[in-house]
């Protein structure tokens, strides 16, 4: 099964929330972001990757440097309570579909 990346999964982690707070006001490089945390650099990179995959963060190339900034459109989804409700049902139904596909192949 492929991993589903969504905005709610992204904010479930405290470090990722902290990263979002950091880049909310300014674009920063991965190095500048990592400097704010005690965690190892690869761990921060992994968080940045997840945030980028779920489109909460966008990458911007400036010469050799990659800058990260928040995607306001996706951030708005976090404020949309119906989207959270839809997501809950979508996850539940995806599970139903997976369970029944396995059930079918067992028969």
């Amino acid at each position, binding site marked *: 099964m492929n991993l*589903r990346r969504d905005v*709610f999964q992204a*904010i*479930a982690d*405290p*470090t990722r*929330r*902290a990263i979002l*707070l950091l880049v909310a006001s300014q674009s920063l490089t991965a190095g500048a972001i990592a400097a*704010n*945390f*005690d965690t190892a650099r690869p761990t921060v990179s992994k968080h940045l990757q997840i945030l980028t995959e779920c489109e909460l963060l966008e990458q911007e190339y400036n010469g050799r440097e990659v800058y990260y900034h928040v995607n306001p459109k996706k951030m708005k989804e976090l404020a949309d*309570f*119906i989207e*959270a*409700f*839809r*997501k*809950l*049902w*979508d996850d*539940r*139904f995806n*599970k*139903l*579909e*997976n*369970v*029944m*596909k396995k*059930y*079918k192949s067992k028969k």
Partner: protein
Amino acid sequence: MERKTKINAEDGKQELMITREFDLPLELLFKAYEDAEIVEQWMGTKVLKLENKKHGSYRFETTDPKGNKYGFNGVIHEFTPNHKITRTFEFENTPFGVQLEVLEFEQLTDDTSKLTIHTIFESVEQRDQMLKMPFAQGINMAHNRLQEIVNKLK
């Protein structure tokens, strides 16, 4: 990922429509609602009782990671295999009241099907509270950790 699940909740109305198309034959989709063991798998809940017949009743119980138990129950008014289930739904010990749920199962092709859940609440307020619940939970989770994050940033 493709948005397969649709929610329709018009402002000021005490009802809610959830629709979803499945890559499953109609019979398998219906079975997911009919078979207690399968319901447990995808709902992540314990099925204490599930009487699939007119005037039958059901009761589910979910346990959160802290060990708190949450009960759900209702009465079945109509049970027509591969077609329709009409039932009530109550989330026990919450202010959401009792809802009427009409579930309609449709065949689209031999391998695809569609489920429509029409839920009617006692009031507009109750519907809106229910809609906000997953959102509120997400936000609470985030808030509880906020202090921790702020401390780390200092």
